[in-house]
């Protein structure tokens, strides 16, 4: 039986245009809403599969504002059993702070396996999972596309520079997940109903944050460019091929 903890972060949905808040400290999400990154969706999927296979449970954890219950709730609906929110003002937190808060929960509840995303979609710090591993004194695999548990050991697979790499380590352990290895599921109606009943445990931070060393955020300057629209739809093909002929690429 494996009880897995998955860490998810409430992040602005930045697939469209990105705006910044006036204090230049965060992304202004007023018009875009919030979500959870694809890497974390993949981590949740892997956790649910492992829990199902071993008769274990999946617990979600987020460190962030009270509104992060939205992301916890919608992720619970995929088939997770419990959720914890460490409520904290996100702009004051750095990766070491987040790792320390996650570590405190893991130690308290004795999770054997913690899954995280490879990198957060907003801050892109690429380090919370590794800092967590050191805080817990546990081994870590970074950037796994899949994981398996067999005979109390963890097998983890990473798409490395020379081919697929296998890691084989004892539990307890930490794994950060890269999207692509599994197709995340969608919530079922039954899952949604069950998620509504879960009581989300709220905690307060265990220590003063050291912060993120952020001076400010900026938007890259827009490069002036005059694009020529050749047209719409397949009827544009002759104009495109005329252009290819002019460019002498045919």
């Amino acid at each position, binding site marked *: 039986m494996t009880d897995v903890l998955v860490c998810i972060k409430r992040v602005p949905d930045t697939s469209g245009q990105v705006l910044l808040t006036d204090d230049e400290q965060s992304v202004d999400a007023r018009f875009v809403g919030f979500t959870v990154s694809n890497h974390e969706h993949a981590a949740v999927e892997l956790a649910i599969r492992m829990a199902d296979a071993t008769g274990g449970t999946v617990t979600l954890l987020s460190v962030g504002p009270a509104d992060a219950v939205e992301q916890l709730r919608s992720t619970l609906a995929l088939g997770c059993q419990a959720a914890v929110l460490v409520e904290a003002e996100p702009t004051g937190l750095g990766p070491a702070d987040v790792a320390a808060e996650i570590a405190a929960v893991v130690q308290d509840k004795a999770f054997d396996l913690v899954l995280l995303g490879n990198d957060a979609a907003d801050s892109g710090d*690429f380090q919370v999972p590794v800092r967590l591993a050191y805080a817990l004194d546990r081994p870590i695999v970074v950037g796994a596309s899949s994981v398996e548990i067999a005979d109390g050991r963890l097998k983890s697979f990473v798409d490395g520079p020379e081919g*697929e790499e296998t890691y084989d380590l004892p539990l307890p352990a930490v794994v950060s997940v890269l999207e692509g290895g599994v197709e995340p599921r969608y919530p079922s109606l039954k899952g949604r109903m069950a998620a509504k009943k879960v009581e989300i445990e709220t905690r307060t931070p265990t220590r003063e944050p050291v912060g993120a060393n952020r001076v400010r*955020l900026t938007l890259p300057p827009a490069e002036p460019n005059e694009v020529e629209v*050749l047209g719409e739809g397949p009827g544009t093909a002759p104009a495109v091929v005329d252009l290819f002929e002019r460019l002498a690429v045919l």
Partner: protein
Amino acid sequence: MIVTLVELENGSVSEISLETLAFARSLAAEGGGIAIRAVVVGDVDAPDAVAAELGAHGVSEVLQATGDAFSAYGGAAWAAALQAARESTKSVVVTAAGSPRGMEVLAHLAARLDVPFAANVVSFSGLAPFVVTRQVVGGAAQEEMKLDRRPAVLTVAGHSWTAAAVGGDAATWTTFSPEVAEADLVARVVATGTKDSDDSDSLKSARVVVGAGRGAGGPEGFAAVGELAELLHGSLGVSRVVTSLGWRPHHEQVGQTGSRISPELYVPCGISGAIQHWAGCSSSKVIVAINTDAEAPMMTKATYAVVGDMHEVVPAIVEEIRGRKG
């Protein structure tokens, strides 16, 4: 002193590591001519060639970590080697490429030393205080971050600097065998599969590249773009979404963590044009973008744009070319 973790690829220095050295040289110059040391971990087939290449890119000394601990990759063990090298050289800055390994090893190092780590740095704007600018929000925004502890630990975003040989002598070569704790060897690679032929050279030098992204819709969505690439005597290039979903092999990826292309003509189809993709294709002479969304960044940055479904537009172009060829 600056120490840079260098990755080797088929025995020679990876492009993205050479780009990182360009950043390190700029930092070294700003600091009044600080020396740059390179660290390589594990076996090296042709040290002389690597020493010559690194010397040409501004490295004065290569420190090679040797020993059983490095017979297979492990993030903690590599970090232990880098940590030992940084201590012996008293380096104030540690850099690596913004590659998966660079990110992993430097995160380990920063955690071990309990110092901040800045991922995906593109520039620096001062030494005292040391402020770096890095990519965040998938490249849609940048963060200015203060690295107020020593060593400053950072990775350099792929293709944000241009690799350039500046013509130094071959670097001196020193081996060292750092002690690696048992705990640092628990998570390491125990087996490596094989990759399909990893030939990205033809893509990098192609005169024409036809690109395809998520808009292709699935692994079966590449037939028409492949045909177009063939008719234009070009190569196929794809976005990271396409490689991470396993639709196409990684060596076809264009962008920050893929190849940097500079063709006469690039035809990205169903690619949104995220900054990390743009990093790999911005030196294309002419870009003809095909996308259903006229507002996609690729469509506004391109030279020419066609608004439409790639599954209709590309086959129509293929047919038109065939018709004209008779």
